[in-house]
């Protein structure tokens, strides 16, 4: 394809875009001669150039369209159909141009006669309207070529000027002037003959001949010579002479070179910094300044006003407005806001889509608008402005806002959320569903939107360039989408981190914060199974070590690091996902120029590119999106969506995370100790003098019986004077007093035993009120008082390793019995319902026994047990029923359902004994 043709295509495309916009404007103000003149001139140039380049199809259409526009200039009424028809012709021309480009300059085969004849018919109609249906049709029937020439001088002649319609003469003059200008360029001075004729010609007399001669003859010559200048003029007017066209590649290359220069300068500065009295210092300073300015300048060449991305929108809105029969006004604010060309390209489509969406489902029909007390005409507002290093683009409509109920329905339909989850969500959270894949609330699929490939694609496109999209919607008032995108993709601020001895750059855009972790600081890495998590401001953050993610973990090395829990956590946010990436070290931030990776490495989703750092070494740039998706597959269970609900579910599934009441006390040592409050029968204080000694142990008389006193540490003594506080544990008429130094507090906390204990009498340590606290193992102390209490000792060994799933819909009983089971040495996981329990079991968590409530909503305990028995995996798992309702009938029903035992809810020792029974039975069977 030769350069001339290529240039023609580029220019024509630009002109056509302008024509689009102008035509829409023209339709609204049919009397605005300047607009019409502009359009006419553009189409005319296209026609002329096509003829010159030997493109008959294009020429034919352009010509017919020009003819029709000529009629408008002659005063024919501007109708919507006529404008639509011209717009269609413009589209056709665009299509042909596209094919032309694809076919390397070969005009595609095709037949436009239909379109042309429509245009001609429309011209004829226009003539008819103009001349009152007289002789006009005859003129329109003529060969297009001729009709145009004849029509040209017709302007303003057929009828007297309407009042206020001063424009036609002006318009014609303007038109002529441009032509004259062109002619001047071509060095072929055209007589100004037509001018006076047109201006002075009396209304009725058409003067076809001289005019056509003038127009027709010079055309080819003028266009040949004036090709380029002409082209520049048409798009830019007076500005054109101050700008030149430069190939994008050239600019890209320039940009790369400048980036290199910047990097080299940085290197030099680094060197000079090391040598104090360098004579290079001053010149380098100058070089540095010049480089900075150069960089800025080159960057500026890449910047384009966002209006370029909006150019097509007026036309789209106009078409939509007609198609949907809604009057729509498009308001554009801040069209001159500049942003990087590359970014501009990337947001074009998402923007178009969003505007379509607003027009189609955002705005109501005029009748509905009137009913809502709004003007008939809906408004879509596009606004762009700078904010920090970002550009904010807002697409706003004053329509009905998002329909929360419809979205809910759809979300349920698609299985994106359950009803219960939806009920808990705020409207804003529900709105976010429209960004989910395959989500569309338009009831019917229209040609405009509603195909369900919408907003998720929009969001993806925006996220690809490091942007975010947010949504605000008020029912009845309208909705607005807020897009936040970086100004440029060329230079990225990154955080340089280290993992396993290698350095990596993480784009700062996705870095939310940095957390320093140390095993003794308040931020510690904790683990659920083997999944590391971080507790960060009441949220659980899934963690992954960068070395593991990249598969560069050196044996032992990073394991150590994770084990010792020292390092930095880079908290990253990608879309709605937040997660922590553990790195060995964090260096500094650096502005880098992203260079594409070699195509051999482009399959690595974990990196978005690479670059050369100031010190000359190459560094790989981490792609946050890649990490996010790897995170999802790496540890799918650990990825939390931002919503509280999702977290809630996790919390429930995580063993023993629900809060229980704990009694804090001190005994034998200054460290706090804790025991579940539900196990404590009473807090008592005795006069020291009441403590008696008998049979080698301390006793007090308590409620008519002797109560043995037990000390936390063997050999401890009670106080020698005053009163002695103690915790009284009672069961089946027996009581025991645990001697303590001081009762500190009662707190609601999660009892999360994080560090197990080898020491007798201590179950382990947990964080309670931000302090490490020992959880007392009552099972150790009770037998000290009465040796047969529970027969605890033998049970310990078996029980410690047993995992029990405890199902109860009442949080009261969960809180009450969980500590009981825990204190008895079982590892307890709680579920708030049978369904949840089945999910947990389905997820592959292994349990040795299930304790289930009977009276539960949705699925009761009997059904739950039957469901378990049907599954071969759970057929032999011991299942205990727990019920406040104990009747022979219900016990029989429980036996039929497959329960191994049936225990009353308040019978705590009974529960422990029953569990012990099922396990010992199991042991027996196994042995």
């Amino acid at each position, binding site marked *: 394809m030769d350069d001339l043709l290529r240039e023609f295509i580029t220019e024509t495309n630009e002109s056509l875009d302008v024509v689009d916009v102008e035509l829409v404007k023209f339709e609204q103000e049919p009397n605005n001669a300047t607009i019409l003149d502009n359009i006419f001139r553009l189409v005319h140039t296209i026609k002329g150039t096509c003829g010159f380049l030997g493109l008959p199809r294009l020429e034919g259409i352009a010509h017919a369209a020009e003819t029709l526009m000529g009629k408008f200039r002659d005063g024919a009424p501007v109708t919507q159909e006529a404008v639509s028809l011209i717009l269609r012709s413009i589209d056709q021309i665009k299509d042909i141009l596209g094919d032309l480009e694809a076919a390397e300059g070969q005009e595609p085969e095709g037949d436009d006669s239909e379109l042309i004849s429509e245009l001609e018919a429309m011209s004829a109609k226009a003539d008819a309207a103009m001349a009152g249906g007289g002789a006009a049709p005859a003129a329109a029937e003529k060969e297009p070529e001729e009709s145009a020439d004849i029509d040209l001088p017709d302007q303003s002649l057929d009828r007297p000027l309407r009042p206020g319609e001063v424009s036609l003469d002006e318009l014609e003059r303007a038109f002529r002037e441009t032509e004259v200008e062109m002619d001047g360029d071509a060095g072929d001075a055209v007589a100004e003959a037509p001018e006076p004729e047109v201006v002075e010609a009396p209304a009725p007399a058409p003067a076809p001949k001289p005019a056509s001669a003038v127009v027709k003859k010079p055309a080819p010559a003028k266009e040949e010579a004036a090709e380029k200048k002409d082209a520049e003029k048409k798009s830019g007017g007076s500005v054109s002479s101050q700008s030149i066209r430069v190939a994008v590649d050239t600019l890209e290359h320039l940009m790369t070179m400048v980036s*290199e220069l910047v*990097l*080299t300068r940085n290197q030099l500065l680094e060197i000079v910094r090391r040598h104090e009295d360098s004579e290079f210092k001053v010149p380098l300073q100058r070089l540095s300044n010049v480089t900075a300015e150069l960089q800025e300048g080159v960057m500026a060449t890449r910047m384009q006003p966002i209006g370029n991305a909006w150019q097509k929108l007026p036309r789209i809105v106009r078409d939509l407005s007609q198609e949907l029969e809604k009057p729509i006004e498009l308001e554009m604010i801040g069209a001159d806001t500049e942003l990087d060309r590359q970014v501009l390209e990337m947001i074009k489509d998402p923007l178009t889509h969003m505007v379509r969406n607003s027009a189609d489902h955002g705005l109501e029909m005029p009748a509905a608008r009137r009913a809502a007390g709004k003007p008939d005409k809906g408004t879509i507002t596009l606004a762009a402005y700078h904010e920090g290093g970002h550009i904010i683009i807002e697409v706003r409509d004053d329509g009905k806002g998002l329909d929360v109920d419809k979205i809910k329905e759809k979300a349920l339909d698609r299985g994106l959320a359950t009803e219960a989850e939806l009920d808990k969500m705020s409207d804003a959270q529900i709105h976010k569903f429209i960004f989910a894949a395959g989500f569309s609330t338009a009831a019917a699929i229209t040609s405009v939107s509603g195909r369900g490939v919408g907003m998720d694609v929009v969001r993806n496109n925006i996220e690809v360039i490091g942007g975010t999209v947010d949504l605000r919607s008020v029912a009845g008032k309208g909705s607005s989408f807020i897009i936040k995108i970086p100004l440029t993709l060329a230079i990225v601020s990154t955080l340089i981190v280290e993992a396993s001895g*290698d*350095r990596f750059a993480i784009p700062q855009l996705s870095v939310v914060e940095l957390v320093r972790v140390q095993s003794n600081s308040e931020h510690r890495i904790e683990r659920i199974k083997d999944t590391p998590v971080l507790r960060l401001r009441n949220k659980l953050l899934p963690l992954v070590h960068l070395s593991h993610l*990249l*598969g*560069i973990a050196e044996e032992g090395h990073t394991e150590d690091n994770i084990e010792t829990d020292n390092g930095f956590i880079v908290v990253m946010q990608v879309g709605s996902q937040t997660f922590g990436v553990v790195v060995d070290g964090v260096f500094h931030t650096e502005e880098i120029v992203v*260079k594409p*990776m*070699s*195509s*051999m*490495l482009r*399959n*690595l989703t*974990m*990196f978005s590119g*690479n*670059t*050369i750092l100031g010190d*000359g*070494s*190459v*560094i*790989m740039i981490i792609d946050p999106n890649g990490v996010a998706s790897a995170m999802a597959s790496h540890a799918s269970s650990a990825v939390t969506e931002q919503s509280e609900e999702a977290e809630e579910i996790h919390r429930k599934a995580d063993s023993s995370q629900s809060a229980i009441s704990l009694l804090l006390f001190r005994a034998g040592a200054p460290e706090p100790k804790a025991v579940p409050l539900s196990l404590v029968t009473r807090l008592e204080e005795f006069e020291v003098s009441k403590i008696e000694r008998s049979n080698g142990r301390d006793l007090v008389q308590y409620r008519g019986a002797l109560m043995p006193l037990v000390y936390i540490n063997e050999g401890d003594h009670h106080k020698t004077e005053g009163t002695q506080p103690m915790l009284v544990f009672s069961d089946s008429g027996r009581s025991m007093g645990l001697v303590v130094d001081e009762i500190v507090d009662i707190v609601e906390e999660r009892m999360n035993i994080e560090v197990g204990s080898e020491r007798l009498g201590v179950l382990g340590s947990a964080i309670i009120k931000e302090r490490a606290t020992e959880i007392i193992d009552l099972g150790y102390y009770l037998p000290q008082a009465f040796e047969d209490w529970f027969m605890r000792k033998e049970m310990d060994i078996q029980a410690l390793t047993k995992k029990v799933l405890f199902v109860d819909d009442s949080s009261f009983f969960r809180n009450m019995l969980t500590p009981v089971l825990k204190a008895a040495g079982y590892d307890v996981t709680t579920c708030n319902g049978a369904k949840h329990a089945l999910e947990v079991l389905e997820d592959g968590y292994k349990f040795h026994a299930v304790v289930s409530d009977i009276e539960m909503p949705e699925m009761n305990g009997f059904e739950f047990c039957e469901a378990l028995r049907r599954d071969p995996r759970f057929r032999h798992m011991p299942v205990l029923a727990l019920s406040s309702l104990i009747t022979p009938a219900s016990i029989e029903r429980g036996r039929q359902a497959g329960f191994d035992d049936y225990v009353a809810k308040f019978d705590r020792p009974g529960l422990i004994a029953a569990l012990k029974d099922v396990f010992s039975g199991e042991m027996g069977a196994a042995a």
Partner: protein
Amino acid sequence: MSVLEDNFKASGDSIQYVTVVIGGQLFGLPISQVHDVFVPESVTRVPLSAPEVAGVLNLRGRIVTAIDMRRRLHLPPLKEAQMMAVGIEYKHESYGLVIDTVGEVLTLSSNSAEPNPSNLDKRWAEISGGVHRLDGKLMVILDVDRLLGAMFTEPMAAA
């Protein structure tokens, strides 16, 4: 370069080769394809890349993907010795072939080249464009297109 190209054209059926040694074996690269010979320094590892990819490095402001030829040819890594690299261009991108040493430039007649012996290791045969018989040794012609092309089509094994 232009002189060399002229030579190349003038000599008609003789081709100039840059010889390199990889694991004791002499290889030849057509000189028209060799852009630089350099010492690979501060190579940055690329995690998850194909095992043959030694990493990326900065060669005069360009990022070059270094390919460990020993690994590509399934040879044991070279221990404790200065490696060399040959810079080539493939599909408008720069690559560095990391080799043991660079030898002299040889002008060889194309008709002294022989096809690969049929019993040559498959992994070698796929990147060899033939063999030249020299005095006392054989020189394997490295076919750059096949060498790099194969790395694009091969499923990338995560390292």
